[in-house]
């Protein structure tokens, strides 16, 4: 379904061009969970962004081919690429605290996403959204769909994010560190959900992570990346069992938040505090502006 061949991504900069991804090939079949693992800065997110066509400027695809089914992703016009996003490829980001628009209710966000790609009425879209949330494990969805993102816990919020990525029935979902920001207990629930969705809906997943545990737990195939190049690729159990493989050398750091043992004010909660800009910070900015006057 997805075929990436010899993908090369470059970032032109002041001190020459930086090649973030070099000659990467991988393919994903429907219903397959393909792991993409590597240390921080290996180019994992860049590959995901290149596939969905959202590379941060000045980054650009310098070589290789990207095909989704029969569609040549590199030949799409910007309008065609945008219409394809959501409809055929979706993406899930690392941090559920910041992935949802804080000013819109969950149902507004779901309905808008569905209506962006399909010509359905709002009530029809809402019914579908509620069904989807129930399927994904949010109880009492008909009522909770009217809530705002901040009223959900981290794990529930990541489920909402998954629902948003799923509500348009894409063929491929790129999940960029979908569990890194979650507590360990919630992590495996979300991974189970991804596993189930891949099976029941035949969706291909590109699961980006730096965590070997996640790879071992749910991926079918894995591509190991280092310095923008493929080190190893193949069925997960084979790659993990190979005695000479370099995965043990991958540091676990990446600034990922620690587990629940890190105390009440670490990880997601802290992030939320930063995300929801309190009035105090705005006051501080005012002061800066006054000085500027």
């Amino acid at each position, binding site marked *: 379904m997805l075929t990436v061949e010899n993908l090369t991504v470059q970032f032109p900069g002041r001190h020459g061009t930086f090649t973030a991804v070099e000659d990467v090939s991988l393919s994903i079949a429907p219903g397959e969970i393909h792991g993409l693992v590597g240390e921080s800065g290996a180019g994992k997110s860049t590959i995901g962004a290149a596939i969905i066509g959202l590379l941060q400027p000045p980054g650009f695809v310098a070589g290789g081919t990207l095909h989704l089914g029969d569609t040549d992703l590199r030949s799409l016009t910007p309008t065609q690429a945008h219409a394809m996003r959501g409809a055929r490829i979706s993406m899930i980001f690392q941090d559920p605290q910041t992935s949802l628009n804080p000013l819109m209710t969950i149902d507004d966000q779901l309905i808008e996403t569905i209506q962006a790609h399909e010509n359905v009425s709002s009530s029809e879209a809402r019914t579908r959204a509620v069904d989807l949330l129930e399927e994904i494990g949010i109880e009492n969805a008909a009522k909770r769909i009217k809530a705002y993102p901040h*009223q959900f816990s981290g794990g*529930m919020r990541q489920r909402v994010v998954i629902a948003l990525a799923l509500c348009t029935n894409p063929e491929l979902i790129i999940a960029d560190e979908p569990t890194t920001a979650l507590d360990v207990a919630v992590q495996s629930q979300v991974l189970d959900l991804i596993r189930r969705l891949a099976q029941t809906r035949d969706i291909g997943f590109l699961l980006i992570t730096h965590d070997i545990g996640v790879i071992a737990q749910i991926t079918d195939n894995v591509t190991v990346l280092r310095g923008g190049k493929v080190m190893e690729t193949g069925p997960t159990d084979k790659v993990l069992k190979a005695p000479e493989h370099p995965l043990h050398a991958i540091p676990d750091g990446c600034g990922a938040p620690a587990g629940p043992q890190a105390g009440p004010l670490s990880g997601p909660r802290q992030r939320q505090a930063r995300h929801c800009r309190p009035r105090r910070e705005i006051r501080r900015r005012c002061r800066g502006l006054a000085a500027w*006057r």
Partner: protein
Amino acid sequence: MAYFILKRLVQSVFVMLAVAFLAFSLFRFVGDPISQMTGVETSVQDQDRLREELGLNDPFVVQFYRFTTDMLRGDFGFSYRTRQPVGDMIASRIPATLELGIVALLISLIVGIPSGVYTALRPRGIATQAILMTTLVGVSIPTFVIGIALIFLFGVQLGWLPTFGRGGTVDLGGWTTSFLTVDGWRALILPAITLGVYQLTLTMRLVRAEMMEVMRSDYIRFATARGIPYRSLHYRHALANTMVPVITIIGLQFGGVIAFSIVTESVFQWPGMGLLFLESIRFVDIPVMGVYLVVIAFFFVLVNMAVDLLYLAIDPRLRVKEAA
């Protein structure tokens, strides 16, 4: 939320008390009220009797209490200069200043927000560079220079618009408005632009900075990855989030617009509170100066409260947290 509003109310009361104290000190200790009220021919005994009658020998706290409660009852004392009640003098000037400030604010919003959004979405465009250059000039030129330049160009050279006063006004039960006559509108244009320029550039730069930050946020990236149409992405998702901090600062600035309309009012001889304040400084008319301070402070407090409520209305995270 109730707690939030209550806290604001209490804070506001303290702010008002502090300003009232300032106004009172001004009145009581800058110059001698008795010698201001009486002439040279008044005998010392008469002066002392007046001092006693007016309670100026009472303890400080008692005097301040009386001053504050008088104000609360709407008794603002009398002007040294005109012998009229200060309350009436200020009240008759409020419409001119408020209308000027509101039109200036509207100009700044109507021009500032769209150009802020435009320059944020096309950061490298030629139009963007031109707008940014223009506003940089706008920020760095003092208000009175802008006013004089406008007068020179549109008033003197082209002769299109009047350069002083309010033109035609209509009295609506004590509120004199410029909004109902063509003449009034024509007189309003130049001073409103002068007063609005700074606010406009501030609004534009603020909207631009916030918008660019929001466009880089995860939820905009996620919405883009879901193929949400660009129009909704920019105006529904991004702009709404941009407005949360922008409203706060624009609101606070509006207090400043009213307070600093003094300069514009004097350039255009606009008969508002600012001009009255300048006149009262020239004649050391301390009661008028004091009440002006209190009124402006009250206005700041009101705007602050309005901004808080608006902020609550926009941002659901600040409302009561009921579990979902």
